[in-house]
C-alpha cells in the first residue's frame, strides 16, 4: 500500500502530462518578459492580455468538454459572429435596453447548440460534419441579420461587460484595494480547499505530496496570484470580464470533475461502448455537450461584441481554431477521454502570451501565425511522445 506521502520525483513523473503545461507556461512568460524588457509583465499589458483573449478562453472551456467526449466543434467562431450580430441589431438598431441584447445572444447560442446537438446526438451525424455545416450556416445567418454591414457603437452598460472595471470600491492609495482583497479571499479559499482535499485523500490512504512540498506549492501559487492582483490593482482595477471568466472556470471545473454529467463525458470519450453498457444515456449527454457549447458561444458573442462595441459580418472568424488549439496545448487527448478545463485555460493563455509578446516585439502577423502553428504541433507531439513512453511497458 502506498500510504503516506509521495516524493517529489514520483509526483513529477506521475504528473508530467498535466504539470508539463504549467512549466511550459512559466518558461514562455519568462522568455517573452526577457525579450520585451519586462513590458509583457507591466500592469497595463497584463490587463490587456486578459481583455483581448477572454472570449477565446470562454470558448475553450466549452470546447474542452466537446473534445473530451471525442467530438470537435468548428462552428463556434461563426456562432460568436451570429450571436453578437443579433444582439447588435436589437440594441443598436432597435434601441432595446442592453440586457435584452445579452439575453437574446445567449438564447440564440442555446438554440444553435440544441440544433447541432440534435444532429450529432439523435441523428448520428459526426460532430465534425455537423459543425462544419454550422460554420457556414451561422456565418450566413450573421451576414443576413446584419444585412452585410457593421453596426456600432453599443451603449455604455453593454460595453462595460468586456471593457469595464471594478475600481475604487474600497478606496485606494494609488492602487485598488478592492482588487487585492478579492484576490486575497480567493487565495485563502483555494488554500483551504486544497488542504481539505489533501486531508481527505490522506484519510483514504491515497498518496499525497509531502507537507513541506505542499506548503511550498501553495505559497508559490499564492505569490504568483497576488503579484497578478497587484499588477491589476495598479492598472485599472478588476476587469468585469475576469470575474465572469473566474466564475465560469470554477463552475466548469466542478462540472467536469465532480458532476455525474462530467463523469459521463469522460466515459463516452474514453470508451463509448463501455459507457453505453454502463447505462450512460449517450445521446442526451452528447446533446447536452453541444447545447452547452452553444450557450458558451453566446456568452463569448456578448463579450466579443461588447469589446468591439459593435458587430461586424466577419466577427469571430477563426475563433474555433484558437479554442481548439488551446485545448490541445492544454493537454486534451486527440482521441478523447482526457482533458481538463484548467489545462484548456492555460493552453489559451500560452497562445495569448505568445501573440501579445510577439506583437510587443513588433513581429509581423505572418511570422506570428507560423510560430503559433509550430507550438500547437509541438504541444501535441509532446503529448504523443509522453503517451508512447508511458505505454512502452
Amino acid at each position, binding site marked *: 500500500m502506498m500510504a503516506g506521502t509521495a516524493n517529489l520525483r514520483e509526483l513529477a513523473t506521475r504528473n508530467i502530462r498535466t504539470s508539463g503545461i504549467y512549466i511550459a507556461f512559466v518558461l514562455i512568460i519568462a522568455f517573452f518578459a526577457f525579450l520585451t524588457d519586462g513590458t509583457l509583465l507591466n500592469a497595463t499589458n497584463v490587463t490587456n492580455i486578459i481583455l483581448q483573449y477572454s472570449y477565446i478562453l470562454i470558448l475553450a472551456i466549452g470546447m474542452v468538454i466537446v473534445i473530451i467526449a471525442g467530438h470537435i466543434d468548428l462552428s463556434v467562431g461563426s456562432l460568436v459572429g451570429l450571436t453578437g450580430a443579433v444582439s447588435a441589431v436589437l440594441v443598436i438598431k432597435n434601441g432595446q435596453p442592453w440586457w435584452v441584447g445579452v439575453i437574446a445572444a445567449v438564447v440564440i447560442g442555446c438554440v444553435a447548440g440544441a440544433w447541432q446537438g440534435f444532429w450529432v446526438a439523435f441523428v448520428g451525424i459526426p460532430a465534425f460534419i455537423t459543425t462544419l455545416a454550422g460554420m457556414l450556416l451561422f456565418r450566413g445567418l450573421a451576414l443576413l441579420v446584419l444585412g452585410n454591414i457593421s453596426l456600432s457603437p453599443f451603449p455604455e452598460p453593454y460595453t462595460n461587460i468586456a471593457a469595464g472595471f471594478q475600481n475604487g470600491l474600497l478606496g485606494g492609495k494609488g492602487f485598488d484595494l478592492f482588487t487585492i482583497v478579492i484576490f486575497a479571499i480567493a487565495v485563502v479559499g483555494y488554500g483551504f480547499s486544497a488542504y481539505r482535499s489533501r486531508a*481527505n485523500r490522506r484519510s483514504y490512504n491515497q498518496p499525497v505530496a509531502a507537507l513541506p512540498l505542499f506548503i511550498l506549492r501553495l505559497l508559490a501559487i499564492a505569490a504568483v496570484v497576488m503579484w497578478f492582483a497587484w499588477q491589476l490593482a495598479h492598472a485599472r482595477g478588476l476587469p468585469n470580464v475576469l470575474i465572469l471568466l473566474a466564475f465560469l472556470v470554477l463552475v466548469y471545473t466542478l462540472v467536469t470533475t465532480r458532476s455525474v454529467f462530467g463523469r459521463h463525458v469522460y*466515459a463516452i470519450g474514453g470508451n463509448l461502448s463501455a459507457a453505453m453498457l454502463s447505462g450512460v*444515456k449517450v445521446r442526451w449527454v452528447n446533446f447536452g455537450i453541444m447545447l452547452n457549447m452553444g450557450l458558451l458561444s453566446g456568452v463569448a458573442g456578448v463579450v466579443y461584441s461588447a469589446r468591439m462595441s459593435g458587430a461586424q459580418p466577419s466577427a469571430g472568424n477563426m475563433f474555433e481554431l484558437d479554442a481548439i488549439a488551446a485545448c490541445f496545448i492544454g493537454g486534451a487527448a486527440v482521441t478523447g477521454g482526457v482533458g481538463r478545463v484548467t489545462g484548456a485555460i492555460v493552453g489559451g493563455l500560452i497562445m495569448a502570451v505568445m501573440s501579445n509578446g510577439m506583437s510587443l516585439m513588433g513581429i509581423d502577423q505572418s511570422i506570428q501565425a507560423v510560430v503559433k502553428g509550430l507550438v500547437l504541433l509541438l504541444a501535441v507531439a509532446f503529448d504523443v511522445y509522453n503517451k508512447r513512453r508511458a505505454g512502452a511497458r
Partner: protein
Amino acid sequence: MSTNILEMRKITKTFPGVKALEDVELNVIDGEIHGICGENGAGKSTLMKVLSGVYPHGTYTGDIVFKGETVQFHSINESEAKGIVIIHQELALVPYLSVAENIFLGNERRGRSGMIDWNRTNHEAMALMAEVGLDENPLTPVGQLGVGKQQLIEIAKALSKEVQLLILDEPTSALNDADSAHLLGLLRKLKERGIGSIMISHKLNEIEQIADRTTILRDGHTIETIDMGEPGSSQDRIIKGMVGRELESRFPKRDHAIGEEVLRVENWTVHHPAQAGRIVVERANFKVHAGEVVGIAGVMGAGRTELAMSVFGRSYGTGISGEIYKRGELIKVRDVAEAIGHGLAYATEDRKKYGLNLIQDIRTNISAASLGKLSTRGWIDGNKELAVAQEYRETLNIKTPSVMQTTGNLSGGNQQKVVLSKWIYSDADVLILDEPTRGIDVGAKYEIYTIINKLVAEGKAVVIISSELPELLGTCDRIYTLAFGRMTGEMPVAEATPEGLMELMTQERDSKKMTQDKEVQS
C-alpha cells in the same frame, strides 16, 4: 541428434520499478512444438517481445542464440528477416483488404515496373491458403471471414515470409473447438515439414495434446521445462508449476440453496442489426432462480452474447420481441439504464472493448454504472466513491498499489475483478457473466469462481456464458445449450456430460425443429 534452433540465455528485463524477467532460460529444439505456460504477468508476452525485437537489443540483458548464431534484433523486421514470426492474440489484419492483400501486406509481390503484380499475388496466395487448409476466394475481404479463418490467414502470412520459428500467443482463445482442432492439426503438419513453433496458451489440454516440451514461467522466472512424452506430465503438473501450489480443485465448493425464480425470459427473438431478416436468436426461453448459477453453453456464433446483450436493455440487435419477467412480473427493459434499474447486470466477454474505460482509474470504472447511488442532485460524492473502490479492492482482492491506478495497466484477471466490482456495486440481482474467465490465468480463475459462489450465497442469480465446458460443469447448477440461435436443451448439471452438451450445441436446424415440435405437442 536434435539441436536447439533457439536458445535464450539469462534474459533479464526490467521496467521502472518491476523486474519482469529474471535470468529466464528458454531452449527450443529444431522442429519441435514448444509450449509456454504461466499465469498472467508471469512474463510470457514480455519474453516473446524480447525475442521478436519489440524490445530492442540493449533494453534487456542476456543472449539470444538463433541457429547457433548470437542475434541482436532492434525491430520486428529484423527478427522476421531471420524467420522468427510472431502471431499476436489480437489479430493484425486489415478487414477491408482481401485475403491475398493481407497475406502479402508489407511484402507485396511486385512486377518489373514496381507495381503490384496481382496475378502473381493471388496465385501465390492460393497456394499458401491451400497449405493452411483455407478454402476461400483470395479476393474475399478478410472482415467477412470468421476469427478461425483469420487465424489461418495470419499463418499463411507467416509462411509467405519463409518462417523458421512460428510464435503463437494464445492462438485458440477466440476459436471454437472445431477451429481450434484444425489449427492444432495445421501446427502438426508444419512440424512434419520441419517448421517448429512456440505456443503460449492458457488452454492446458491443448498444450498437453500438441506440445513436445513445455516451459513454465512464474513471476518472471523459468520454473522448469517438462518433456511432455514423460509419464506424469499431466495438466496438474503444469498447473502446480504455474501457481506454485497444488490446487486441490479447480473449482471451489459451494452449497446449493436455490430460491425463488428471479428472472424469466420467454419467446425471445432477436434480428441482426445490419442484415435485415436474419434471425440471430429465435424463440429462446430461459430462467434463473435466486442462489442459482445457470450456464448457457454454445459455440461462438451460436447467439449467446447476442441473447445476453439484447436482454440487457436491447444493447444488441433490432426487431426484438419476447417477454422478460422479474420475480414473476412482466417488466419493460428498453435501454441499459432501465436494465440496471431492474437489477440486471451484464459483464461483457470483451472487457477491453466493451467493459472498461482503460484510460481511467479503477475507482471511476467501479462507480461507472452506479453514479446515481453516489450522487445527490447530479454531484458526485468523491470521498464515498473512493471508499467504495477501496472496499472492493480489498474484498475482491484486486492487486494494485492504489485504486487511482489506470485500469489499462492491470492484468486480465484484475481487470475482470474491476468489471465484477462495477456490477456487484450496481446492486444487481441477476448477473450475466459472458466468458468471465477468458484470457485470465488459473489462479485468478479460481478467485473469480470464488466470487461467483459468494454472490449466489448472498441470494443473487448468476448466468454464465462460456465455451469452456469444464468451467460450466464445475460451476453451474443447470445448463442450457444454444445452437444456431435456438435453445436446444436444458439439464441439471448432474445429468450433463461434455459429450452430451457438445452434441446439443452442434445440433442442426432440422433435427432440432423436430424436437421443438414435439415439445409443443406434449
